[in-house]
Structure formats: structure tokens, C-alpha cells
């Protein structure tokens, strides 16, 4: 048996489920035709995607002049969106990897969908480095390979190149980790399918049989991948923060950026996971697997990381004052009182003030409040990146260079397009793959199902411990 769970803990699986119930509940959404809600959502997502594709092609054809980037604001909505999407992606790895290492059983209700969200968010993010350089047809110049241009190598001292390696690695490792977990679940879907669907899921499940040795290796692999993915996720957003921190711009060149960015990424990622999970659990009737306990735990993480972000904001202000460095001081005056003061206040309200509502247990366990909060946090984190990038660049060292920025319709269209990519992929995922990790949830049933833990437990693990006599089986619970 896995580690003993106290019987007074809140159950993580409600509804008195058996193993077969778990299979039924989690696989049947992939076997049924999509409902109206899915169709409408997919229609909207495809529309957004089409707008995005048009705007991206327009950008490539006409050039970066179709954006409103100019001196001195060389990075605007493009890099804001890039950092926003990468930040969102961090929750998936945190939930799968870090919570696995910390032995948090509640991760099993949300890890599959969160990891899928990570992969789709990184795809959206990776678009921006590709298109913002202008000549996307020579973007392979980034990669170090022996070539006939000297050979001309990229600059390994540049954080922009570190970013390339970090994001490629992050995408690959997340994909591998996600897929490794999916193989046994695809086998479950395969064994219930027939005809063409069976062929597809046979291919996807790689011949999985459920043999004991394979499970042993699967667990070992998951553990080591989690151990690798944890420093990886911390390093990825640290490296993204280095894009700013290694510069000389006031407000950027500070050592607080790595922990500030990582905490902010976890913060926004969990908010996006909540947004998706609250809708998914309602539509696919998964309230017994993504329970209020799960939502409360995620809200606690949001409270903690939001507070860390708040402390980071205050540290920046404190150090700007304490340093006596006029340019740094001005950078913060500008953020709060300059032409973009509204984005700064939006950021502060959404990121620092609003998560404090989660000190109240009642609010942490309220679905409507959680949903509204998750949207606020996503918006607030977008504003944070906008504040860091555009407002700071609009007013740096030389007043004669000061300018203003507002996005062109093409840039807005590309952002809408990334929302389209993300939701098209996510909606497709909910149709073809089980949204909750089936094998992992079955694994925690005996310790955390509501027959075993919580107020209504009537069955205790110790009753199931091996007895001396093998006379008869236990039968159904």
C-alpha cells in the first residue's frame, strides 16, 4: 500500500467510485459525440485561430512595420504575450513534477489536463520568437549547426539564445512527461474501443500491457523525469527573466527578476489551470475527480505565489528608493504615475489585492469566486508583463527619446490567434484523450476515495491489509 493517509483528510475522489466507475467516467467523454458547448467553443476558437493566421501571414508578408514597434519600444505586445504564455505553461510542470516529488495526491485530478495546457501554452509562446524577428525564413540561423557561413555560430552568451534552448528543452521534456503518463490511459481507451478507433488508440498506446515490470519502470521514469523537470521549470522562467535582467534598462536590471518571474509564472499558470478545470469539470461531469479539495489546494498556491509576487513588487520599490539611483527611482514613478499608470494599477489590483480574498476558506472553496479570480489573475499577469516591457521602454534614460506605444490591429490579431491556437488544441485534447489521469486516480482510490477518507468513510485501509486466510475474495465495496 502507498503511504498511509489519515482518515480525517478530505477525500479526493467522491461518489463512492469503484475502479470500473473511474474508467467509465473518465473515458466516456472520448467515446461520445461532442455536445453543443464544445461545438460553440471550438467554433469560436477556430475563428480566433483564423484571425491569428491571417495576421501572422500579414506580418511575414509586410514586415514588422505592420506592428507599432518603434524607437525606443522595440518590444511591445509580442514579447508581453510571449512571456505571458510561457508563464502560463509553468503550472502544468509544477503540478506534475513538483507535486509528485512532494507526494501530493491531489495532483492526480488535474495533472493530465495541466500538462496538456503547458504544451499548448509553450506552442503559443514559441510562435513569438519566430515571427518577431522579421525574416522567419532564416530563423534556422538560431540553431548551432555547421554551416557554410563561416561557419557562423549563434552567440551563446546571449540570454536570447539561452531562451531558445530553454524553451525547446521545456517543450520536449513536458511533451515526453505528458505522453509517458498518457500511454497506460490510452491503453484503457484502446481496450474499450473497436474498429478504427481501436487501431488509432493501439498505435497511441504503444503496445502497453500493464505488466508489473513495465509499471515499475514507468514509475521510476516518472519520478526521474519529475526530478529533472523541477529544476527545468525553475530555470526556464529564470532564463526568460534574464532577457530583461541582463540588460541595463532601469527597472529591468535587478537581481529580483528570476524568483519574481518564476513565482509569477506559477501564479498565472495556476490561474489558467483553474479557469480551464472549472469549465471542464462542469461540462464533462468530473466533479467527483476535480473536487472542491483540489480547487482549494490550487487557490492556496495562488495565494502564496500571488503574495510572493506582491512582496517582489514592494522589494523593487524599496530597492529603487534605497539605492538612491535616480533612473531606477524614475522608472517606478513612471510606472505608477506615467502615461501607462492604468496598467500599473490594473496589475497591482489584480495580482496583489485580489488574491488576498483566498485567506478566507469560504472564498477558497467557492467556485464562482475562484473562476472570477482566475480571470483577474490572468489579466493582472498580462498587465505585469506589459508594465515591465512597454512602459519601461517608453521612458528610459534619455528624455529626448521618449515615445509611446499602442498595439496595431495586426498585433492584437496575433494575440487573439494565440488564444485560438490554445483553445483549439485544448478542446481537441478533451475529445481524444482522457482529461484526468486514469491510472493515477485509481492508484489513490484506496487511500483517498470517499469510502476510505473523510467524514463518510466506512471502509478503512487497515481492513484491507493482507490476512492469513486466503479463503475468499472481498467482493465489491
Amino acid at each position, binding site marked *: *500500500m502507498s503511504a498511509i493517509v489519515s482518515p480525517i483528510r478530505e477525500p479526493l475522489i467522491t461518489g463512492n467510485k*469503484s475502479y*470500473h466507475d473511474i*474508467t467509465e467516467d473518465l473515458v466516456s467523454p472520448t467515446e461520445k459525440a461532442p455536445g453543443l458547448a464544445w461545438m460553440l467553443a471550438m467554433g469560436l476558437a477556430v475563428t480566433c485561430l483564423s484571425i491569428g493566421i491571417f495576421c501572422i501571414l500579414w506580418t511575414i508578408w509586410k514586415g514588422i512595420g505592420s506592428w507599432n514597434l518603434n524607437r525606443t519600444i522595440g518590444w511591445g505586445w509580442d514579447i508581453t504575450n510571449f512571456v505571458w504564455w510561457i508563464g502560463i505553461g509553468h503550472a502544468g510542470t509544477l503540478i506534475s513534477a513538483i507535486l509528485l516529488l512532494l507526494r501530493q495526491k491531489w495532483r492526480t485530478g488535474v495533472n493530465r489536463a495541466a500538462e496538456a495546457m503547458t504544451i499548448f501554452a509553450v506552442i503559443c509562446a514559441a510562435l513569438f520568437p519566430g515571427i518577431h524577428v522579421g525574416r522567419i525564413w532564416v530563423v534556422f540561423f538560431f540553431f*548551432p549547426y555547421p554551416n557554410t557561413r*563561416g*561557419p*557562423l*555560430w549563434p*552567440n*551563446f*552568451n*546571449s540570454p536570447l*539564445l539561452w531562451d531558445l*534552448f*530553454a524553451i525547446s*528543452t521545456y517543450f*520536449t*521534456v513536458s511533451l*515526453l512527461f505528458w505522453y509517458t503518463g498518457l*500511454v*497506460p490511459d490510452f*491503453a*484503457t481507451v*484502446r*481496450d*474499450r474501443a473497436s474498429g478504427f478507433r481501436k487501431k488509432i488508440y*493501439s498505435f497511441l498506446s*504503444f*503496445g*502497453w*500491457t500493464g*505488466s*508489473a*515490470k*513495465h*509499471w*515499475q*519502470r514507468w*514509475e*521510476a*521514469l516518472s519520478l*526521474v*523525469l519529475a526530478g*529533472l*523537470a523541477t529544476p*527545468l521549470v525553475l*530555470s526556464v522562467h529564470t*532564463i526568460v527573466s534574464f532577457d530583461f535582467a541582463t540588460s541595463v534598462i532601469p527597472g529591468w536590471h535587478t537581481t529580483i527578476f528570476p524568483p519574481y518571474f518564476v513565482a509569477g509564472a506559477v501564479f498565472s499558470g495556476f490561474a489558467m489551470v483553474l479557469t480551464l478545470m472549472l469549465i471542464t469539470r462542469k461540462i464533462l461531469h468530473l466533479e467527483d475527480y476535480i473536487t472542491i479539495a483540489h480547487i482549494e489546494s490550487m487557490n492556496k498556491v495562488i495565494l502564496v505565489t500571488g503574495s510572493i509576487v506582491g512582496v517582489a513588487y514592494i522589494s523593487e520599490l524599496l530597492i529603487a528608493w534605497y539605492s538612491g539611483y535616480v533612473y531606477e527611482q524614475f522608472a517606478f514613478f513612471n510606472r505608477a504615475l506615467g502615461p501607462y499608470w492604468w496598467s500599473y494599477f490594473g496589475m497591482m489590483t489584480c495580482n496583489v489585492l485580489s488574491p488576498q480574498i483566498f485567506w478566507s476558506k469560504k472564498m477558497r472553496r467557492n467556485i464562482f469566486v475562484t473562476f472570477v479570480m482566475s480571470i483577474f489573475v490572468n489579466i493582472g499577469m498580462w498587465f505585469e508583463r506589459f508594465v515591465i516591457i512597454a512602459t519601461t521602454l517608453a521612458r528610459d534614460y534619455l528624455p529626448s527619446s521618449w515615445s509611446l506605444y499602442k498595439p496595431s490591429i495586426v498585433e492584437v490579431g496575433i494575440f487573439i490567434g494565440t488564444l485560438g491556437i490554445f483553445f483549439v488544441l485544448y478542446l481537441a485534447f478533451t475529445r481524444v484523450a482522457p482529461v484526468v489521469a486514469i*491510472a*493515477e486516480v*485509481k492508484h489513490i482510490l*484506496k487511500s483517498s476515495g470517499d469510502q476510505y477518507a473523510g467524514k463518510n468513510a466506512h471502509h478503512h485501509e487497515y481492513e*484491507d491489509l*493482507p*490476512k492469513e486466510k*486466503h479463503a475468499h*475474495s*472481498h*467482493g465489491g465495496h
Partner: protein
Amino acid sequence: MREKEVIYGLYNDEVDLLNAVKAANADHLDIMDVYSPFPVHGLDPLLGLSESRLHIAGFIFGAIGTLTAILGMSWIHAHDWPNVFGGKPTLAIPSFIPITFELTVLFASIGMVVTFYTVCGLGPGVNNKTLDDRISDDKFCIAFDTHDGDSSHIDKYKSFFSKTGADEVNSKII
């Protein structure tokens, strides 16, 4: 692989499975394999499975990644085309750290995952015959190789299954 006739029993619960495996060990029966819908803790030592050595593969691949990164960047920046970037020395080891770390993780992950599928004999297009479709649902299976239908063995296995409370007993050629 040679086709074999397998006799297998399905159990409804992992506790029954663990008890049955213990009984099989006590009776000195040679289990061919055990299948379950999720990893059953406590099963591996009972089956005498040695611990997985995937982490060793991970370490080796990771070390290859580290060396590739460090040696590659050092050769490129200090030997092949030295450039002065921001006044840094050409062998700017601190600057090389992020990419070295990333490549270590990348090589370790890809290497370990490919090793995992290879040693398990799994992969795209692989079609292993499963004994029962309900094993990936809610049944736990112990399978014995009957060594081409030797009837004394079969009786021994059948009595073992009824003694340990198997829900169903079947045989199949895989």
C-alpha cells in the same frame, strides 16, 4: 517470440492479487507475469523484480549532454570563431551555464524515455497481445505459462486460482 499457451486468473482487487502472489511464492509456482490497471505497490519485491536502472541511463545521457554543451560552446567561442561579446573573455563559463544545464536535462530526458520504451518493448506500432481487455479497467491478472498444455501443471494452476479467490480463470495462446 514463441507462441505460448497461458493460463491466467483475474482478481477483483489488488489486495487479493498480493495475497495470491504470496501464495504462489509459498507453493513455488513460477508466475509468468502479473498485469494490473495501475502500479500496485508491494508487488515488485514479491515477484522478485530487481529495481529499475533507468536512473543510471538518465545520468549517463545527462552527462553526455553536459559534455556536449560545455565542449561545444567552448570550442565554438574560444577556438573556432572567437569574438569579444560585451568585454567578456572568449571562454565565458558563467554564460555557458544556462545552456549546459538545459542540454543536460534534454539529453537525460530523451535518452531515458527512449531507453524506457526500448527495454519494455513498447513503441509506436507495437502490438502486444493482451490477455483481457478488462485488465486496463479494473481486473488484476496473474498469468502462468503452461508449457504447451501439460495437464498436471494446468490442474495445479487451476486449483491455485480457486484457492486464492480468482474471479475468472481462462487460457489463451499469445
